[in-house]
C-alpha cells in the first residue's frame, strides 16, 4: 500500500494504482484523453503530464503510465507541467475543425473543456488542416473524423474491450484514420458506447442529432428495462420526448457501458401511436370516468360471480410499485392472480431461479468479469442479455475460460468452448457434472465423446473462481435447479463460486416474489375457459404480442364478460378492452426494479407526461394555441391506476402504495434510501419453491426419434417488444429465420433459404430456413421476432414431428 503526496496532500492507495487514479481519489482531476478507467493506460495523448519532484521518478511524466509508489511527491500545478499540458493541447487542436457550434458534442465535450481549462485560447498555427472523408457507420453512430485527436480510445474499446474488429485504426502519422475499411453498419451491438467514450465529437448519437445541447435536456438517472440485467443509464428528454440514453457508470452492474438495445430502445415512450387517451369500449372519455366505469364493472362481476372471478395479469417489465399495488389489491379483494408469466414452465423457471439464488452464491454482472472459469448453461448471452456477453469477454481477456452448453448456435465476440447439446440432454450432463465435482465417476448418456465431462469437472474444480451462468428461457425448472446445485457443489471445494441467472423481464425477480406458488397467464386462461374467471385486468402486459398462443388468447377473451387493459404501448388488445386506461412508462413514472441478481435499483422520472411537441406541432413549430393543460397528459402511473381500481373513490393512493411496498415481501426493504442499489435480502426468500410446485418433466424423452425441438428464442434486436418499436433499431434487425444444423436440414428434407411450414395443433408458422453448423442436432431455433407471427404453439419450447414439417417451394 504505497503512500504518496499529490499537491501536498497525502494518500494511501493499493499497489498498482496509477498516479492519475490516486489523484482522482483526492478529487484532483488530472486532464486525460486516452486514459479511461475501463480501458486502462496507453500514454498516447500526453495531456496527463504532471511533475514528480521527489521519490523514485523525477521530472515531467505521464501520470497515467506511472504506478503510485512510496515516497512520491507529485505536483499537478507545477509551472513546467502546466506549460507542457498547454502545449500538448495546442498541438492536439492544430487540425481540429473548431466546429463546436454545429457539433453535437459541444457542451459535454472533454476536448472543449480541457482546451479552455488548459489555457489555450489563441490559435497560432496558420497552415492547412488535415481533412478526412467521413463514413456512414449505420443508423446509430454518426462519424465526423476531422474532429479526431488520435486518443485511440475508440479502436481500443471496439477491438480490445468488445472483441469486434470491423472498426479500427488505419494509416500512420497525420493520416491516422479511425473507421471501417469501407462505409457500412457497425457490427458490434455495443457500438453506441463509442459515443460516450470519444473525448470529442468524432462519434455522436445519430438518432438525437441536432435535437439539443446537453443543458437543454431534462436528464435523470434511469434504468434499462429491455432485459433482466438492469443496466444503469442516464435518460435525456426534450420537449416531452425521450431523445437519448447514455451509459451511467455503475461498477457493480454494467461498469461503464450499455448495449445498443438499451441505448436506443427508448422510442416506445414517445412514439406517435402510444395510447394516451382513456377509452370505454373504444370511445374516449375523461380518465376519471373510465376508471370509475372499470371499478364498477369489477364490482358488478364480484357481486355476481365472487371475487375469484376477477383475474389480474401483470408484466415483469412493470415497476416494483406497480407489482406491489397489484399484489396488495389481489390479496385484499381475493382476486385471482396476479399472473406475471405466460406459461407454467416460464413461471416455474423464474421462481426456481430466484429460490436457488442463495446469498453466498449470487454474483453481480461486474463480478462475473473476475471469474476464472465460466460455465454458461442454456443461455445465449449476446441475444438474451447482451451486456453479459461483454462481461464474459472480459473474463476471456483476463485469461479466463468460458464454456457454453446450449443447443443454439451461440456466438460470442471471443474464443470459447461450445457444447451444442440437445435440450433433453442438458439435465443428464448437469447431473453427471455435479457427481464428478463431488468426486464420483459419472457419465451422461447420449452425450458425444467430444464433450468430456470429467475434464470439465476437473477444470471447474481446479478453478480459483468458477461462476455458473444459467438461462431461464429454454430450460426446464429441473435443469435450473441443477445449475444451482452445481454452483453449490463447487462451493464446497471453493471459497468463491458464483451463480448467475438471467431472467425474462426487467423486473422478473420482483415478479417471482409475488407468490410462493407462481401463477401463469396460462393458468388464468384455464380458469377463463372453465368459466371461473369473468373479468380480466391486464396491467402493462401486452398479451397480444407476448402470450405464446394467440388463437387461444382470442378465444378466451371472447368468453370474458369484461376486459380492462392498462398499458403504454399500442396493441390490438387495447381495442378489445371494455375499459382502457393509459399508463406512464418509466421515464414519466420512475420507480424501482429488481434485476436478475436481486439488486434493487431506482429510476427517477425524467419528464412530465404529454404528447411530444414534435407530434403536436406537426414536427415543425410548437403549436401556437395555448391551453392550461398539456395535450396527452392523461396517462397515470400504473400503480396509481391500479390503486384507483382497487381502492375507494377519490382516495389518495400514496399511503396505499406505502403499505403495499412494506407488505410486498420481507426480502425487499424500501424504508431506507441506502437499500437502493444494494442486493435485497436473499436469505428471506423461501428456498423450497421447487419441491412444493409441480415440476413438469421435459416431454422430449418420449418423443419420436425423428422429431425436432422447436425453440422460440430471443435475438439481440427485433424480439424484445419495447425496443422493437424503435425506428433506429429496425435497421439493425436481421430478418427472421429458422436456424438448423445443415445435417438436420438434409435429414428433414428441407432446403436452405427456402421456407418451412410447421403445423402443430391446427396452427401454422412459416419461416425461411438457415443453416447454422454451430447448432445442436434435433433442434430448430426461431426468433420471437416482431415481423413473425410466432404466437402459435402455446409454448416457446415444443416438439415437432417430422410429419409436421413441410418444405415450401418458395
Amino acid at each position, binding site marked *: 500500500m504505497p503512500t504518496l503526496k499529490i499537491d501536498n496532500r497525502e494518500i494511501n492507495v493499493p499497489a498498482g494504482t496509477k498516479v492519475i487514479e490516486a489523484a482522482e481519489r483526492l478529487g484532483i482531476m488530472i486532464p486525460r484523453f486516452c486514459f479511461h478507467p475501463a480501458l486502462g493506460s496507453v500514454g498516447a495523448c500526453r495531456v496527463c503530464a504532471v511533475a514528480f519532484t521527489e521519490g523514485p521518478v523525477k521530472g515531467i511524466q505521464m501520470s497515467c503510465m506511472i504506478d503510485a509508489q512510496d515516497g512520491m511527491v507529485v505536483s499537478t500545478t507545477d509551472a513546467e507541467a502546466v506549460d507542457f499540458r498547454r502545449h500538448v493541447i495546442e498541438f492536439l487542436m492544430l487540425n481540429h475543425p473548431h466546429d463546436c457550434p454545429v457539433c453535437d458534442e459541444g457542451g459535454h465535450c472533454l476536448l472543449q473543456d480541457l482546451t479552455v481549462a488548459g489555457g489555450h485560447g489563441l490559435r497560432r498555427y496558420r497552415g492547412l488542416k488535415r481533412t478526412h472523408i467521413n463514413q456512414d457507420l449505420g443508423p446509430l453512430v454518426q462519424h465526423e473524423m476531422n474532429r479526431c485527436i488520435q486518443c485511440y480510445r475508440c479502436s481500443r474499446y471496439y477491438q480490445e474491450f468488445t472483441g469486434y*474488429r*470491423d*472498426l*479500427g*485504426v*488505419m*494509416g*500512420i502519422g497525420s*493520416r491516422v*484514420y479511425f473507421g*471501417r*475499411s*469501407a462505409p457500412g453498419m457497425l457490427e458490434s451491438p455495443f457500438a453506441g458506447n463509442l459515443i460516450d467514450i470519444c473525448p470529442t465529437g468524432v462519434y455522436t448519437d445519430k438518432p438525437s442529432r441536432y435535437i439539443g445541447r446537453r443543458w437543454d435536456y431534462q436528464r435523470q438517472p434511469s434504468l434499462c428495462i429491455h432485459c433482466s440485467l438492469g443496466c444503469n443509464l442516464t435518460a435525456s428528454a426534450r420537449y416531452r420526448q425521450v431523445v437519448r440514453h447514455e451509459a451511467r457508470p455503475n461498477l457493480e452492474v454494467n461498469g461503464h457501458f450499455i448495449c445498443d438495445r438499451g441505448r436506443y430502445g427508448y422510442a416506445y415512450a414517445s412514439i406517435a401511436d402510444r395510447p394516451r387517451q382513456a377509452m370505454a369500449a373504444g370511445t374516449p372519455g375523461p380518465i376519471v370516468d373510465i376508471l370509475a366505469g372499470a371499478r364498477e364493472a369489477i364490482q358488478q362481476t364480484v357481486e355476481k360471480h365472487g371475487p375469484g372471478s376477477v383475474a389480474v395479469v401483470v408484466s415483469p417489465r412493470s415497476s416494483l410499485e406497480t407489482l406491489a399495488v397489484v399484489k396488495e389489491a389481489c390479496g385484499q379483494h381475493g382476486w385471482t392472480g396476479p399472473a406475471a408469466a405466460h406459461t407454467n414452465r416460464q413461471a416455474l423457471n423464474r421462481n426456481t431461479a430466484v429460490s436457488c439464488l442463495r446469498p453466498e452464491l449470487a454474483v453481480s454482472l461486474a463480478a462475473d468479469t473476475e471469474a476464472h472459469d465460466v460455465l454458461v448453461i442454456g443461455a445465449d448471452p449476446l441475444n438474451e442479455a447482451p451486456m453479459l456477453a461483454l462481461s464474459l469477454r472480459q473474463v476471456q481477456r483476463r485469461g479466463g475460460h468460458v464454456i457454453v452448453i446450449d443447443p443454439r448456435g451461440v456466438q460470442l465476440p471471443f474464443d470459447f468452448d461450445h457444447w451444442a447439446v440437445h435440450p433433453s440432454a442438458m439435465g443428464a450432463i448437469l447431473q453427471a457434472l455435479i457427481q464428478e465435482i463431488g468426486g464420483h465417476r459419472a457419465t451422461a448418456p447420449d452425450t458425444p465423446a467430444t464433450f468430456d465431462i470429467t475434464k470439465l469437472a476437473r477444470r471447474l474444480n481446479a478453478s480459483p473462481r468458477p461462476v455458473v451462468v444459467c438461462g431461464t428461457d429454454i430450460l426446464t425448472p429441473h435443469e435450473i435447479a441443477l445449475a444451482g446445485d452445481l454452483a453449490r457443489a463447487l462451493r464446497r471445494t471453493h471459497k468463491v463460486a458464483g451463480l448467475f441467472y438471467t431472467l425474462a423481464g426487467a423486473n422478473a425477480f420482483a415478479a417471482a416474489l409475488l407468490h410462493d406458488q407462481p401463477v401463469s397467464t396460462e393458468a388464468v386462461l384455464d380458469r377463463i375457459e372453465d368459466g371461473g374467471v369473468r373479468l380480466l385486468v391486464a396491467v402493462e402486459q401486452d398479451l397480444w404480442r407476448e402470450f405464446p398462443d394467440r388463437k387461444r388468447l382470442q378465444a378466451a377473451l371472447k368468453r370474458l364478460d369484461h376486459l380492462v387493459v392498462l398499458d403504454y404501448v399500442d396493441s390490438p388488445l387495447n381495442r378489445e378492452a371494455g375499459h382502457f386506461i393509459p399508463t406512464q412508462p418509466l421515464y414519466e413514472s420512475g420507480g424501482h426494479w429488481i434485476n436478475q441478481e436481486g439488486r434493487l435499483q431506482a429510476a427517477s422520472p425524467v419528464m412530465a407526461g404529454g404528447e411530444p411537441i414534435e407530434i403536436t406541432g406537426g414536427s415543425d413549430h410548437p403549436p401556437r394555441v395555448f391551453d392550461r393543460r398539456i395535450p396527452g397528459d392523461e396517462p397515470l402511473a400504473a400503480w396509481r391506476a391500479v390503486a384507483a381500481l382497487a381502492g375507494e373513490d377519490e382516495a389518495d393512493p400514496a399511503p396505499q402504495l406505502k403499505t403495499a411496498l412494506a407488505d410486498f415481501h420481507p426480502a425487499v426493504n424500501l424504508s431506507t434510501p441506502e437499500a437502493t442499489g444494494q442486493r435485497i435480502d436473499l436469505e428471506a426468500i423461501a428456498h423450497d419453491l421447487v419441491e412444493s410446485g409441480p415440476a413438469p418433466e421435459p416431454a422430449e424423452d418420449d418423443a419420436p426419434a425423428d422429431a425436432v425441438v422447436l425453440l422460440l428464442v430471443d435475438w439481440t434486436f427485433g424480439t424484445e417488444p419495447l425496443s422493437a418499436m424503435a425506428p433506429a433499431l429496425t435497421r439493425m434487425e436481421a430478418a427472421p429465420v429458422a436456424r438448423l444444423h445443415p445435417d438436420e436440414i438434409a435429414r428433414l428434407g428441407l432446403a436452405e433459404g427456402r421456407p418451412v411450414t410447421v403445423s402443430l395443433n391446427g396452427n401454422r408458422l412459416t419461416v425461411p430456413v438457415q443453416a447454422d453448423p454451430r447448432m445442436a442436432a434435433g433442434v430448430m431455433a426461431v426468433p420471437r421476432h416482431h415481423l413473425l407471427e410466432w404466437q402459435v404453439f402455446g409454448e416457446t419450447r415444443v416438439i415437432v414431428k417430422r410429419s409436421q414439417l413441410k418444405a415450401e417451394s418458395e
Partner: protein
Amino acid sequence: MPLPLTAEDRLHLKTLQPQIAASPKGRGQLIPLLQMAQKALGYLPDEALSLVADHLAVTRSEVYGVASFYNQFRFNPPGKNPVKVCMGTACHVRGGEIILENFERKLEIREGETTEDREFSIERVACVGCCALAPVALVGETLHGHMAPSKVEGLVLRVRLEKEKAEREAAHS
C-alpha cells in the same frame, strides 16, 4: 473513388489467387501476403485485400489498417509515367509545394492518385540529391530541374504527344 480493374489486373488477380491459397495461415503472414499481392499487381486493389483477409480469416478493416500503416504499400496503380515531386529542404524552400499543386491541377488528381488512363501518378518524394537544381520533379525516369509552374503543362503535353506518336508509328508498321 478507386480506379476500376483493368483486364491485366484481373489476370494478375487470377494468378495471385492460387498463390495465396497455398500460403501458410496465421496473423503473422499478413505482411508477406500483402507484399506478394503488391508484387503481382503493382498495387493493392480492394479485391486483393479481400483475398488476403479471407485467407487469413481477419477482417478487411484489419488488413487495410496494417497495409495503410506502411509506406511500401500503395492502393492506387502506379502510372506509366510516375511524377515524383521533390519535397526536400531545398525544393521546399524554392516552392516545391507550388510545383506539386500545379501537377495536381493539370492532371486532375491528388497526390498519391493515378489518372484514369493510368498514364500519370503523382507522388511526393524526399530529396532526390540534386539540390542545386531545386525545385526538382521527375517524370518517369527523366529529371527536370529548375521547375516552374509554366513548365508543368509542357511536360505533360510532351509525354502525351510522344505517346500519340508512338501509337501512330505502331499503326503504320
